[in-house]
């Protein structure tokens, strides 16, 4: 697939602090706070915005349909064009890419992508039930619908295929919760050890409470612009160099056992015996990476990327995603974390913000939050926005954001590049 549209830049972003429950503000107010932060940071006003994309996952959480237009209305963006985009956990990533398309197509010169989720209006186990309704309600949900259960089976199979260990999974939790100690937006920063993770309550073996992200209330906003407009707004925009989107079957049971779609840094002989994706890997993640790398001209992701913000709803999915993104070969995800490569000071920092595990996962906001954190990293403005520069990477040029739905049903990858 070729992307022949106009160049698209991110020019500003805003995030609310994610929390388990913030009953004093509703979703509209939260988006408004993040939106105003982004507008002020770039010196923009409402008049500068051509249109918007609304990003939220579930109508069930608040029993409110058309929440998108309620936000559009509250922000004062009516009667400008807007639409809602939804795709489970990848909603934020898909909406971000829809904003990209609005600019790339020439329809808009500026577009605000706003994401939110209000998950605190139901208890945690009812929330899990709603999320599980995003599995086939004929065949999967009634068997004991529980996403951590599905991911546990995928993690177990990854361990079986490749020898991945529970300690390697736990290291992801230690890393991400630890990074978040310096991120004021994060919901659950924690200094942990591998044994803390293993000793926390078992949710669905092998995944413990600290292998799994939490539910949150939160909002995030990204403002995108055309090249001409972007440089009018700021002398430090970030180029969205390429996007990719992959999909896979709704039911885990339907995943085929075929061949790996190869990245430029891989050979067919690397995977002679591997039946792919089965339930050990995310074919949608691989397809998304492949498309985005082609669009951005990346042939050696490990050496051509400086940071990754990926969808670590589970520690196991972070390890699986290292492989889908080609940061290492399939089967090497466990040793990748053992070698410290995704650490803050490692070869390629993965989830320097703390990821979903530590920042929280207000679904519709999550993929946009990743965009905002990557944007600040590439602008080298982490100190300004976080109040400290502990997480600022020295001189990042290129970042990757990755958003992921269901059991790997929709996955987006977007590549962002510093312009100076």
């Amino acid at each position: 697939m070729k992307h022949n549209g106009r160049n698209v830049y991110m020019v500003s972003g805003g995030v609310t602090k994610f929390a388990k429950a913030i009953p004093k503000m509703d979703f509209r107010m939260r988006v408004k706070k993040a939106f105003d932060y982004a507008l002020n940071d770039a010196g923009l006003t409402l008049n500068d915005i051509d249109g918007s994309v609304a990003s939220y996952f579930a109508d069930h959480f608040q029993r409110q349909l058309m929440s998108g237009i309620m936000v559009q209305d509250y922000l004062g963006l009516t009667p400008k064009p807007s639409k809602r985009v939804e795709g489970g956990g990848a909603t934020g990533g898909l909406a971000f890419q829809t904003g990209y398309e609005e600019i790339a197509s020439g329809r808009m010169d500026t577009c605000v992508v706003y994401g939110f989720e209000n998950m605190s209006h139901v208890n945690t186990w009812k929330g899990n039930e709603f999320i599980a309704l995003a599995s086939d309600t004929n065949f999967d949900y009634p068997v004991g619908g529980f996403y951590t259960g599905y991911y546990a089976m995928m993690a177990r199979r990854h361990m079986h295929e490749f020898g991945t260990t529970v300690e390697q999974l736990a290291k992801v939790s230690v890393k991400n919760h630890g990074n978040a100690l310096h991120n004021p937006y994060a919901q659950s920063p924690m200094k942990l050890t591998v044994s803390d993770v293993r000793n926390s309550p078992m949710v669905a073996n092998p995944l413990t409470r600290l292998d799994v992200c939490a539910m949150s209330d939160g909002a995030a906003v990204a403002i995108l612009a055309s090249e001409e407009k972007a440089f009018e707004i700021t002398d430090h925009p970030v180029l969205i160099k390429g996007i990719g989107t992959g999909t896979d079957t709704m039911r885990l049971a339907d995943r085929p056992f075929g061949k790996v779609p190869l990245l430029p840094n891989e050979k067919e002989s690397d995977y002679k015996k591997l039946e792919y994706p089965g339930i050990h890997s995310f074919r949608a993640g691989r397809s998304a990476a492949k498309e985005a790398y082609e669009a951005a001209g990346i042939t050696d992701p490990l050496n051509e990327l400086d940071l990754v913000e990926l969808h670590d709803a589970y520690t196991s999915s972070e390890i699986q995603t290292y492989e889908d993104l080609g940061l290492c070969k399939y089967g090497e995800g466990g040793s990748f974390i053992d070698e410290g490569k995704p650490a803050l000071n490692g070869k390629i920092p993965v989830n320097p913000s703390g990821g979903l595990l530590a920042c929280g996962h207000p679904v519709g906001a999550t993929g946009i939050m990743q965009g905002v954190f990557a944007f600040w990293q590439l602008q080298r403005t982490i100190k300004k926005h976080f109040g400290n520069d502990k997480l600022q990477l020295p001189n990042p040029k290129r970042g990757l954001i990755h958003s992921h739905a269901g059991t790997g049903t929709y996955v987006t990858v977007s590549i962002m590049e510093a312009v100076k």
Partner: protein
Amino acid sequence: MTLNPNAKMEETQNGTEVYGFDPLIVKSHYEIDYIHSYAQDSEFFVALGHKKIMGSKCKKCGYVYGTPRGHCMMCGAETEWHQLPNEGKVHSYTTCYFGSEEFLPETPFHLIMVEFEGVNSLFMARLIGADAEDIYIGMPVKAKFRRNQRFLPTDVYFVPSEEALKAVDNSKNGKK
């Protein structure tokens, strides 16, 4: 014609449960019965009453599905019903100690993905009759069926097969 400035809404005793006043947080109740059609998947649920697990086979490319679907994802052609074996192996497994609200009372429970000989894809099910630490990938399992059907996919569930027991006995006796 009625124009009554003294009209008054009738008072009720229903009231509202309040969790807190700052901000005001109230209980809002919702429930619904759906008229859910299994549509082209119906045969699967009916067949469980005859102790048969029905998958699908593509009429064109021959791909065999461990969970039925009306059309083939490989080539787009229509599939036909295809009876699956009542024995298979554990492809992967977990034990859920927490769950969605609906299933919380059933925790802990085991979920497995079943692989069947000669079938190209898997089937998700419950496993009973084994402790969490005794389940393993490759474990032989056999299907059992509820007598009183609920027309849910859990009308079929799996238990360890006699073969799995034999494997344990053999390893205890030092045989492979």
